[in-house]
Every structure is written in C-alpha cells, then in structure tokens.
C-alpha cells in the first residue's frame, strides 16, 4: 500500500514554493532568486540521482558504484568550499574539504557496509549510495560550519593569537580555544538532531522507510545506525579539517600566515 506520487502532486507542492518566492519579492526580502535556483537544483539533481540509482540497480558494477561515490564526494567538497567566507588558497582548500569528507563519510560508509549491515555484495548500490549520500549531506554541513568558524574567528582574533604567541605559547596552544569553539560549531547540528529525534522530529530516513511500508521498529534501528554514523563521521571530519587548517594557518616559525587564505564573497 505504497502511494505513488504523480507529477501533479509535486506541482502542487511547487506552487507553495512559488508563492513563497512571490511573497519574498513583494516584501523585498531578497531570497526569491536563491530559492528558485535551489528548488530547481533539487528537482534536477534528485531526478538525475534517481535515474543513476535505477541504472545502478539494474546493472551493478563495483567500479560504476565507486565512480558515483567519488563524484558525490567531490561535489560535496566543492560545496563546503563555496560556503566559506575565507578559504585556503589553491588546491589546499579543495584538498582539505574533500579529504576530510573521504575520512568522515566514505570510510565510515565502507565500515558500516562491511561490518554492520554486511550487505551482499558490499557495494550493493541499494545500501551503499543512500548511506553515503545521507552521511555526506550531514557531515558536509558540520564540516562547512566548523571550517568557516575556525578561519573567521582566527581572522577576527588575530591580535589575541599574536599576543599568545608573544607570551611564548606554541601555535597549537594559541589557536586551541578557537579550534574547540569551531569543533562545537560543527557538532551542534548533529548533537541537536540526535537530542530532538523522536520527540520533536521524526528523521527523514526513518519516515521514508515507514511510508514505504517498513516495520517501524526496523526503520528506527536503521535511523539509530545512521545517526551514530553521522555523528562519528561529522566529528572525525571536523577534527581532521580543523587540524589541517590550523596547521596551515601558521608557517614553520609559528607565525600567523593569513596570506594563505583567500577571501570570497559567500552568498549562500
């Protein structure tokens, strides 16, 4: 008794978005354009991944699954970078964000595919792709927040960092407070959603499984699994970016090295 949605159902929902956009234009709130673009992106991107998954299910090739995974990770890495007010120059920026996503999402997805879910074969796209997608989506937010907080706060607190250096503190110590603040900023979304799960919000994946007719308790187990994976992934991911960036913010003589940062207008 799974109710299929028609194009008409979706266009009803789309009307709501358009109404919001019109209201925003009328009230000069300035989000209409971004809202339309984002809505359009979501439609196109989701339809595409739907098609990709469909063809993956019909013809399961490990190389093809991996390729899809790497594209997802690279796009997520790029997305993190575009949300930064100040990013590392050159390939460092992309390298750090993508590398940390690799640690946080890809490795954790592999771990759970092999050890927890024991999917057969392990690259079974029915599990691999959605799991990775959920992890990426959530850790991406955490990493982007943590990174942005670190570089922004370091930039603003430059005199304090230099003061601490003058007092003979190591670079690592001089930025430690800012780093733990950034860590908190990155972890707050997942900590909040774990705390609110079930009481305030019913998480998306569980809701989806239940609507698709899954046994609620089974859906809950999957949701708990994914929550743990997301929090571990976000945590490890944020720790690794903070470590890498805070290393990169100082030169070999423990001097602040802001010329390695590039300011960009973050309009997202």
């Amino acid at each position: 008794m799974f109710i299929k949605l028609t194009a008409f159902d979706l266009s009803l929902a789309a009307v709501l978005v358009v109404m919001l956009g019109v209201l925003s234009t009328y009230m000069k709130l300035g989000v209409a354009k971004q809202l339309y673009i984002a809505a359009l992106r979501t439609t196109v991107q989701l339809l595409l991944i739907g098609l990709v998954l469909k063809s993956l299910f019909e013809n399961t090739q490990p190389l093809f699954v991996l390729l899809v995974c790497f594209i997802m990770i690279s796009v997520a890495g790029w997305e993190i970078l575009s949300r930064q007010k100040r990013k590392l120059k050159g390939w460092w920026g992309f390298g750090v964000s993508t590398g940390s996503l690799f640690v946080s999402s890809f490795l954790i997805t592999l771990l759970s595919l092999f050890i927890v879910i024991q999917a057969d074969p392990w690259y079974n796209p029915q599990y691999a792709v959605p799991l990775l997608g959920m992890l990426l989506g959530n850790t991406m937010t955490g990493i982007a927040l943590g990174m942005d907080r670190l570089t922004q706060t370091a930039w603003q607190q430059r005199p304090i960092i230099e003061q601490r250096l003058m007092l003979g503190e190591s670079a690592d110590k001089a930025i430690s407070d800012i780093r733990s603040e950034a860590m908190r900023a990155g972890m707050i979304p997942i900590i909040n959603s774990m705390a609110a799960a079930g009481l305030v919000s019913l998480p998306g994946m569980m809701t989806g499984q239940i609507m698709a007719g899954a046994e609620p308790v089974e859906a809950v187990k999957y949701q708990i699994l994914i929550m743990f994976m997301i929090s571990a992934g976000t945590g490890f991911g944020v720790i690794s970016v903070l470590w890498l960036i805070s290393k990169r913010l100082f030169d070999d003589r423990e001097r602040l090295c802001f010329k390695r940062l590039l300011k960009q207008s973050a309009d997202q």
Partner: protein
Amino acid sequence: MSFFNIQALEYLDCGPINLQIEASEIIGLNGASGSGKSRLLRSLADLDEHTGSVYLNSIEQHSIKAHTWRAQVAMLSAETYWWLDTVAEHFKNFSIEQAKALGFVSDVSAWQVSRLSSGEKQRLGLLRLLENQPDVLLLDEPTANLDPENARLFETFVTDYVYTRPACAIWVSHDVEQLKRISQRQYKIQNGQLLRTAKGI
C-alpha cells in the same frame, strides 16, 4: 659574542641592521611613526618574516623552536590583549607584591579584564610577560598610556628586572627624555637604517 646579537637583519625595506647588546643593557629606540620600529621588534621576536641572524647567548633564533625563542625574547606590544574573563586566569602565579610595585593598590587579580584601562593593561601585560623570565625585553611604547607617576614606576620595575636577572631590553619610545633616563645607548630608525644618536639627541 655579545649577549644579544643582531646581524644583517633585514625586513621589508629596512636594514641591514647590526646591533650588539650586553646583559644589563637597555637600548633606547625612537623614530618617526611608520619608520619600522615595531617591525624591528616583531622580527626580533620572530613574529614577522625577515632575513639575517639573531643570537641570544650564542644561540641562533632559527635553531630553536619559535615559541621557545619567544618565551626568552619577549615582546610587549603597544596594546596588550586579554582573552579570558579575569586577570588571574592569564597568569600562572599572580604576584600581588609585584603588582603593588607597579602602582596597583588593591588586588587586581580578580578583576574582570573588561574593566581594565589601557594603562592598567599595559602594566599587567608587563607582569604577565615577565612570568616567563625572559632574557630580552622588546618594549613597544610601553608607557604611552601611563600617567607620569605610573610611568616612573614602570621604568624602575623594568630597569630592576634587567639589572637583577640580568637581561637586556630594547625600549621604543617617542619620549626622548625617558630614553635618556633609562637607556645607556640611544638609536633611531631613519630611512630603514638604525642610527646611533648622540647623547642629548
């Protein structure tokens, strides 16, 4: 070799600068704003990029870790910064005796840093810096925000420290009279060069 030895130091468009300072010696430094005085101190503390060599007790700056160097070659910037809530949190051991010698009448250790005046920050900044027992003091207009009475206490405190440890100091100031009072030799930076000024400037 001298206690503190600066050889062919160059930074931005300043230098080469050569200067030898002995223990217990205070060097007075002045020069127009923007002439590179603060930059010189920052280079000596290894906070800015520079070329040339700096030796303390025959140990070259870049042969030891930067933070170890900075604990020994300590810079007091024109403005000091305080990032925790109370004064005491910035100290390992807050000494009320020493604070009194710098003109504080009550126990300032419990004070909120937000209520410190710039002059108070300057004096407490010196106390905080001296906790590391540095061998070289780099003082960037340290008494600019102090009234004459506290400025005198500050001068006495620094000279006492320099003579007893013994350490050496470079004292940047616009006050020529003060420099004559506290330093054995006076220099100025002009056109990127360090020039010794005759007594009486």
